[in-house]
């Protein structure tokens, strides 16, 4: 229960950070909710982790205008990959975190485009340059988000 509360507080904090990025950083902002979801997948228990991974995706869907549930599905699918990899790789060092988030961010862009195509018939995705820029900034800010999440949760 305590862990659930901690993760909820983290979720609120990350949503505020996401708002700061959107309001003041323009196109050079990280996708804080995505990085948070992936950090949860690395260190949280499956049930609690997946609940907030799902909610993180829904948070983006809530403020968006199309395909309500698209980001939630994308985050859930990508998080499954992280859950699969976390016992096989060490994500506690910064390089691993940076590489992980860079790759997953690109993958998430492609997956979201595919989902939108399947469910709405329209391919909704950024251009390759935009996806690359997004992945780069996600990777740069990943260590900070991971550090915060690991410090608060500290369990597997």
């Amino acid at each position, binding site marked *: 229960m305590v862990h659930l509360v901690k993760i909820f507080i983290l979720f*609120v904090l990350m*949503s*505020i950070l996401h*708002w*700061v990025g959107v*309001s003041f950083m323009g196109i050079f902002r990280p996708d804080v909710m995505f990085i948070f979801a992936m950090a949860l997948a690395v260190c949280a*228990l*499956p*049930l609690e*982790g*997946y*609940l907030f*991974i*799902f*909610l993180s*995706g*829904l*948070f983006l*869907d*809530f*403020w968006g205008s199309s*395909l*309500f*549930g*698209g980001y*939630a*599905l994308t985050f*859930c*699918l990508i*998080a*499954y990959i992280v*859950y699969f990899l976390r016992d096989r790789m060490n994500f506690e060092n910064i390089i691993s975190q940076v590489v992980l988030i860079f790759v997953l961010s690109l993958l998430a862009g492609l997956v979201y485009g595919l*989902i939108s195509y399947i*469910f709405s018939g329209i391919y909704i995705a950024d251009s390759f340059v935009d996806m690359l820029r997004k992945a780069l900034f996600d990777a740069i800010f990943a260590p900070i988000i991971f550090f915060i999440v690991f410090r608060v949760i500290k369990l597997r």
Partner: protein
Amino acid sequence: MNNNRLLNISASFFIILSMILMLLPLDGSVGSFRNLLSYVFIPQIKGSNYTYDYSSGVAVRVKQLINAHQENEKLKEEMKSLMLNKSQTDDIQKENQRLASILGIKNKQNLNGVWARATYKEPSRWNTVIIDKGEKDGLLKNSAVIGINNTQVGLVGKIIEVNKDNSKVLLITDKEFSVACSVGKGNWHGLLEGSGDTDLEIKYVPINAGIIKGEDVFTSNLSAVFREGIKIGTISEVESGGGEFKTFLHLKSNPLVNIGSLKEVFVLTGK
């Protein structure tokens, strides 16, 4: 193993839930679910927005407060200068009115002379005053000096000392001052002298002259120094039985011009 099973169940559950949300229309149950989510997603964003707006406002308000304070100090200084200017303007206005009335009277009586300011009263002789005009302005010893009371011209004294830039005026209230005068409607001649006080004494007016209080006193044509017709004052007291043989009236007069508050005087040139 247990952990893997839990992972698979959780992942499946939320993936299916996401798909359901995407498949169902936005109104109806998905809309209700979305409204429910607003209680979780909106408050912190609203709070952050409000905090940002408030803190931006604080910076602006502090800046406005500082600017207002600086402006306030500046305005206080300006106010002081304005009050000083106003005071000076008021003085100038009064002087202007006084001089305007003087000019009007001067034109009427065709007086020739020089305006001068009373600058200094000698403490040792309170009935003399120094004026700021002298020899270079054409002043001569024994010149008549007149002043203004509202719109009337009145005798003030005579020049007893002339320097280059200033002159000394013996006021009519001084004991050493005297002038031949005419009193009342009958133009009765007498001798007006200063008493050393604020009033004037008039001697040698015949007892049967029938002078009463309030009658005017003018300079007489018998005066060697002053031209005829300059008003000196009004009778304030009438006593009979003056002189050795008690055949004269003993009169007292109030000067027309308030000697105590002299500011400008007009010095007549030529009789």
